[in-house]
C-alpha cells in the first residue's frame, strides 16, 4: 500500500462528519415545526437578524476597518517565516550530531533576525494597535 493510501481514513472521517452534519441540519429542518403563518409581517420579523430587539439595520454599510485586513497580511507573512523554521528545527538535532550545528544556527540566526526586525517595525509602525 503506497503510503498515499494513508489519506483514505482522513477522507473517510471527513466524509463521516459531513454526512452527520448534513443529516442533522436537514433533519432538524424537517422535524422541527414550520413557521406556517402566512402573514408576511411575522415572517419578516421572525427572520429578521437578531438585534436585541432593535429594528435591523441594513447590511450594506458594514464597514470593516483596515486593521483586520492588515492583521491577516501580517499573519501570512509571519506564518510563512515560521513554516520556514520547521525544516530547520527538524534538521537541527541531526546537524548537531554531524557537526554542522554552528552553520545551521548561523543561518537561522540571520533568518530570525529578519523576522524580529519585521516584527519590531510592525510594532513601531503602530500597524498592530487596536484603538
Amino acid at each position, binding site marked *: 500500500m503506497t503510503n498515499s493510501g494513508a489519506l483514505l481514513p482522513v477522507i473517510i472521517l471527513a466524509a463521516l462528519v459531513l454526512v452527520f452534519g448534513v443529516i442533522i441540519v436537514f433533519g432538524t429542518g424537517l422535524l422541527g415545526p414550520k413557521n406556517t403563518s402566512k402573514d408576511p409581517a411575522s415572517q419578516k420579523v421572525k427572520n429578521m437578524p437578531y438585534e436585541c430587539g432593535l429594528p435591523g439595520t441594513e447590511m450594506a454599510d458594514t464597514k470593516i476597518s483596515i486593521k483586520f485586513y492588515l492583521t491577516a497580511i501580517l499573519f501570512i507573512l509571519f506564518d510563512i517565516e515560521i513554516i520556514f523554521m520547521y525544516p530547520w528545527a527538524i534538521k537541527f538535532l541531526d546537524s548537531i550530531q554531524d557537526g554542522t550545528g554552528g552553520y545551521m544556527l548561523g*543561518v537561522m540566526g540571520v533568518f530570525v533576525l529578519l523576522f524580529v526586525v519585521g516584527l519590531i517595525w510592525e510594532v513601531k509602525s503602530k500597524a498592530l494597535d487596536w484603538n
Partner: protein
Amino acid sequence: MSLSLNDILFYFLAGVAVLSALGVILQSNPIYCALSLALTMVSVAGLFASLSAWFVAGVQLIVYAGAVLVLFVMVLMLFDTKTEKRAFSKGIVSGFFKIVSAAMIFAIAGGAASMSGDARFSKLTGVVSATQSTKDLADLLFKKYLFSFEAMGALLLFIAIGAVALSRIQGGTHAD
C-alpha cells in the same frame, strides 16, 4: 484498468480540484469563488500527500488554505461584495481570443505531457517517513538554496513593510 486504491484517490482529488477550480472562475459571488478556491487548495494538498510529499502538503494546508485564503475572504468581506451582475469582461471577440489562447495552452501542454510516454512512478525505495523527507528537504534548503532561503526572509520583511505602507495611502493619484 486495474483501479488500485491510489488511482481512486487521485481521480477523486483531481476531480474535486478541477471542479472547484471551475467554481472559482465561474461563480458570480466572489465569496463563493474564495471558498471553492479553498476547496481546491485542500484537494491539491491531498494530491501532494498522494505524491508522498507530506511536509509540502501540510505547508500547503497551513499557508494557502489557512492563511492566504483567509486574507482573501477577509478582504472580500471588507469590500462588502455582492453578487456581481457582470462578472466577465466585455468584448465577445476578445473573449473568444482569450478562450482560444487558454485552450491552446492546455492543448499544447497537455499534448506534450501525454506524448512523453507512459512515465510510471517507480516504487518508493526504502522507508520514507515524512520526517525523513523533511530532513532531506531541509538539507537541500540550507545547502543548495541557502541564498534564496535568506532572500525569501528578506522578501517577506519587505512585503510586510510594503503592505502596511500601501494600506496607509490616503490620497490616490486622482485624489479628487
